[in-house]
């Protein structure tokens, strides 16, 4: 068991086993209420195994660290050879650790949150499948194996968002999530096969990267393929214009939102781009598109988050915005060396997993107490009623806002630094990177403002509870609070302990083979292994964050929302999500509906034609029927006549 790939395989297998166990337990009503046991155990086991894997990776020496399991052929057809093989390298080990660790605490929270739910076993079975799919995605050595995990994640998100399938809005949200991400997946599959074609018919990451970097295809093909691959990431990681599914995805149970936002789904796109960094750095045009999309998404969703009334919606838009940050960082790869941008992005994934899971679970705790009401206009001043939740939410909010020394501060600052450096060395795209840099700064200010708006509206001012809460309006039980406390420590401390001084991420990620390869493509010397802390930038971003928080305090400390008359129109714009849903509705959904109506008309027409056509054989059949009249004389006549015709034809033809 000393081989880390065996440990990783075990960490992969445990959630799958738990899926099956929980599903089987669900068939028996007495066992169903214990369905959380295998799942929580499996998650915890996986987290421990992931930690062991990570320690093995850290102990490994050499400039490149990767362990590959023995390849088993999954399928083979002509040029297409896909193996089941997993890669343990710094990138996958770090992601695996993050996912399983955060996943474990979300599962623990779910035990209390979902108790007495009729679909208890189904919920836990799907959770385990979700984590399994994500782990498969992370560990895959092959693009198509990654797609298998990718689709598994998509399926589980559909099933979990639509968990309350009897509720029409939940069913619609699930459908939306599935279809919108599917749009991106189409592009991704096309991108994969374009790379497959251009990359010597390899889908294995290492072989594909080696082939492409050694024989780069022409820049148009390369950029097209990269952007198609990025389409998949846009869908899964909720970037503009496909982000619309994520805010609706909170129709599922709150821990599911936490899982989607923190660990198992939206980071998949970031991971894909980090993994495929050697391909993206070859195409500066694709990289600037990635950075621009990330920047635009970040500021757009931050603006929308400003005026949302639904606490979970604010958090959802903040996730979209933070994912935009990660793509900004990844898009800076090229002008900036690959190891630095991957560090920045993955480090933000790591810290974001903690504070976003914490924020969602805290809002879940609020929702639990408020009788499933999540509209911030209906409650307020909860800090006295729910002191622990209040503190944990504050930790998460401060981390998200980039309060100095908390985890979000370090990772966001690193990203801003990356984008700044890209604007310095960006070559022909320097101006655009400068724009992205400005966007990042403005977004940092907006983030602090909307986060603390939500915080003040929920926890400050006079105590107000909705009638739905009833006597439920009290602090949540310990089972719900324990995960919050653990994650709160993570949100506060995870950043400072790991990276800024210890350089845990940067020292490790520089050894990931794909990062090494990307660096060698960029001809970057190995000396800049870890980022240096830029005090001027940190100062600016701190100032922005603090001023955003201050503004929120000044305006919302009463816990009541008032909108100045001058800003009414802007407020409406934000409240209605910039009318993006309406625009999409008009641009895509309505024409599609018209097309459907038209198709139906055509279908009716074709149906009529088909009926007429299908009537013809029947008619001929009925005409033939009298020939079978049961008279043997007639049969003999038929035989003789037929024979005569046959003979004549053959003889005439042979005599020609």
């Amino acid at each position: 068991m000393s081989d880390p790939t065996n440990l990783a395989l075990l960490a992969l297998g445990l959630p799958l086993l738990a899926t099956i166990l929980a599903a089987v337990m669900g068939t028996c009503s007495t066992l169903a209420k214990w369905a959380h046991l295998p799942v929580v155990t499996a998650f915890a086991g996986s987290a421990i195994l992931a930690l062991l894997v990570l320690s093995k990776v850290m102990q490994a020496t050499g400039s490149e660290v990767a362990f590959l399991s023995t390849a088993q052929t999954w399928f083979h057809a002509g040029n297409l050879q896909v193996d089941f093989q997993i890669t343990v390298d710094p990138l996958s080990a770090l992601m695996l650790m993050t996912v399983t660790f955060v996943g474990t605490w979300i599962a623990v929270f779910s035990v209390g949150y979902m108790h007495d739910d009729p679909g208890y076993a189904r919920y836990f079975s799907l959770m385990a499948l979700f984590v399994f799919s994500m782990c498969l995605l992370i560990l895959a050595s092959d693009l198509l194996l990654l797609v298998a995990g990718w689709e598994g994640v998509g399926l589980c998100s559909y099933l979990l968002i639509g968990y309350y399938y009897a509720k029409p809005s939940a069913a619609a949200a699930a459908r939306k999530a599935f279809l919108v991400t599917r749009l991106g997946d189409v592009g991704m599959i096309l991108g994969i096969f374009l790379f497959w074609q251009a990359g010597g018919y390899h889908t294995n990451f290492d072989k594909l990267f080696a082939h492409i970097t050694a024989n780069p295809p022409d820049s148009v093909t390369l950029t097209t393929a990269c952007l198609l691959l990025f389409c998949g990431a846009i869908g899964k990681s909720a970037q503009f214009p496909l982000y619309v599914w994520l805010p609706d995805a909170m129709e599922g149970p709150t821990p599911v939102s936490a899982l989607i936002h923190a660990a198992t789904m939206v980071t998949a796109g970031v991971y894909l781009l980090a993994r495929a960094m050697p391909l993206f750095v070859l195409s500066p045009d694709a990289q600037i598109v990635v950075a621009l999309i990330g920047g635009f998404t970040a500021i757009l969703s931050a603006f929308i988050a400003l005026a949302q009334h639904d606490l979970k919606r604010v958090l959802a838009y903040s996730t979209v915005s933070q994912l935009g940050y990660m793509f900004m960082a990844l898009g800076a790869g090229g002008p900036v060396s690959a190891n630095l941008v991957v560090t920045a992005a993955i480090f933000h994934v790591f810290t974001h997993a903690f504070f976003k899971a914490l924020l969602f679970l805290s809002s879940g705790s609020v929702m639990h107490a408020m009788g499933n009401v999540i509209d911030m206009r209906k409650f307020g001043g909860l800090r006295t009623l729910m002191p622990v939740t209040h503190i944990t939410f504050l930790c998460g909010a401060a981390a998200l806002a980039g309060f100095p020394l908390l985890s979000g501060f370090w990772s966001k600052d690193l990203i801003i630094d990356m984008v700044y450096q890209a604007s310095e060395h960006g070559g022909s795209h320097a101006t655009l990177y400068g724009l992205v840099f400005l966007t990042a700064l403005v977004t940092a200010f907006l983030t602090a403002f909307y986060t603390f708006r939500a915080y003040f509206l929920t926890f400050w001012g006079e105590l107000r509870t909705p009638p739905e809460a009833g006597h439920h309006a009290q602090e949540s039980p310990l089972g719900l609070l324990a995960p919050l406390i653990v994650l709160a420590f993570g949100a506060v401390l995870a950043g400072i302990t790991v990276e800024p001084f210890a350089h845990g991420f940067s020292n490790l990620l520089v050894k990931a083979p794909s990062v090494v390869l990307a660096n060698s493509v960029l001809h970057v010397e190995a000396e800049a292994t870890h980022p240096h802390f830029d005090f001027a930038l940190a100062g600016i971003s701190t100032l922005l964050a603090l001023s955003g928080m201050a503004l929120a305090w000044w305006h919302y400390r009463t816990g009541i929302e008032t909108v100045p008359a001058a800003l009414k129109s802007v407020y409406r714009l934000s409240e209605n999500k910039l009318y993006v849903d309406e625009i999409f509705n008009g641009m895509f959904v309505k024409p599609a509906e018209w097309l459907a109506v038209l198709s139906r008309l055509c279908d009716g027409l074709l149906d009529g034609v088909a009926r007429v056509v299908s009537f013809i054989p029947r008619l001929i059949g009925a005409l033939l029927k009298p020939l079978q009249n049961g008279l043997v004389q007639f049969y003999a006549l038929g035989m003789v006549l037929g024979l005569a015709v046959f003979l004549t034809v053959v003889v005439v033809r042979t005599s020609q």
Partner: protein
Amino acid sequence: MLPNSEQFSALLSTLSADLVAFLPELILAGGITLLLFLRLFPQLCRVHSGFVAAGVVALALTTLLGNGHVTTNADWEPGAFTGLLRLDLFSQFLRGLLLLFTLLLLLLCDQTGIPDRDDSADFCVLLLGGTLGLMLMTSANHLLMVFIGLEMASLPSYALAGFLKGQRTGSEAALKYVVYGAASAGVTLYGISLLTAVFGTGNLVTVTQGLGHMIADSESVPLLPMAGLCFLFVGFGFKLAAVPFQFWLPDVFEGAAAEVSAFLSVASKAAAVGLTARVLLLLQEANPESVRLAETLGIALAVVATITATWGNLAALTQTNLKRMLGYSTIAHAGYMLMALSTLRKDGMAAVLVYLVMYLVMNLGAFAVVAVLRNRTGAETIAACRGLIARSPAVGVSLTIFLASLLGLPPLGGFVGKFLVFSAVYDAGQAYAVAGSPTLEWVYSLLLGVGIVNTVVSAGYYLAVLRSAGLDEAEATDASGHALPLGEPWGVAVYLVGLSIVLLILGLVWNPLITLATSAIR
């Protein structure tokens, strides 16, 4: 002029080798005698003859499979028994197929109780006798053997068709069958005598060599040998039920028991297809470079195939009786097989051998379902299928698989057969175009189109049965409105499900079968 001792011993050793290869037929003949003897002893009558017959067939089949020394077709170049029979790999394949089918049919008869104990000895004797005749057909190398085989197969079939005593339709159908069969046998015999008169021998190789050269080389072929060949094909067409020799089939199928219909539809057809394929292959081998044979006989066969398939499919659309519908479907399938035969190429013949294997399983299955329906509901109409899936999942799902396979849906065996036949037709068109005959390319492309359109049309009646079985409410319901279970014996259910699984496996793994069929043709 007596042979000297050396020649005599050489003849003896050839004879013993021939006898070893002929052992399966000898065992069948011995089995028939045994069954007849058993009737003489009342004590032994308690043994159900079906088991004895099945044992005999199983023994024959094992013997056949144990005949390992037939490895190439060249081993049997001169033919066994002084050139009367040709016990090569091709005949080995078809004889094995026939014995396997008879064994499966006997097992089915044991389950469905047709025939009853009193009649079982007669029934089994007729069945084994018919099989023996069919086996001779597949290995005939002489026109005399062709005729003997045809008649040995036909006479028991006439008796089997009228086997359900006291049923007017059955007796009437059997009588028609006899009259029709006698007429076609007469024509065949006339053709044989013409051919023998022209070529001075009945040896199939010599006759086909002569005919093949005549067609390929000379400007115009004399009428006599051509007429002889066509008359010979009347006998084959009668067994195949190709248009215009198909009239007997629907009436006979409707009148005979489902088990007998299965025998007529699968075994007779397999032997007839084998014999036709052998004659056509020999004709083509006489002058393999020439396209003239394809331009005459090939086109004629393609026309017959087109009419047969279309006729069968169109007539099946309006049927209400399940057995009659399956009868027309048999005609349609004969058309598909004729399409492959009309290519006059080895891969077409190999395709038709694979087709026969699939056809054996799916048609036997379909008739077995009819037999079950007859036993449990007393009706053999499509209406009797209503709600079948609800009444008996095993029977209903098996029927679905058999009919879907007959229709040619993947991943079932029927799809494989149809696919191979159609691709053989397409390849033939391409190959003949290369060989310098654009007409033939056009003809075979048209034939391919006809095959595809026919497949679509056939969906009309196969799916109608499935709609009835799957979607319609069952007529027989209990007090609370639930469908009454069909109550089929478990043995039948196992039998049907087993056949369905075989069909599914054959639809997934067909490479070994193609290899086997190709080696049988080469």
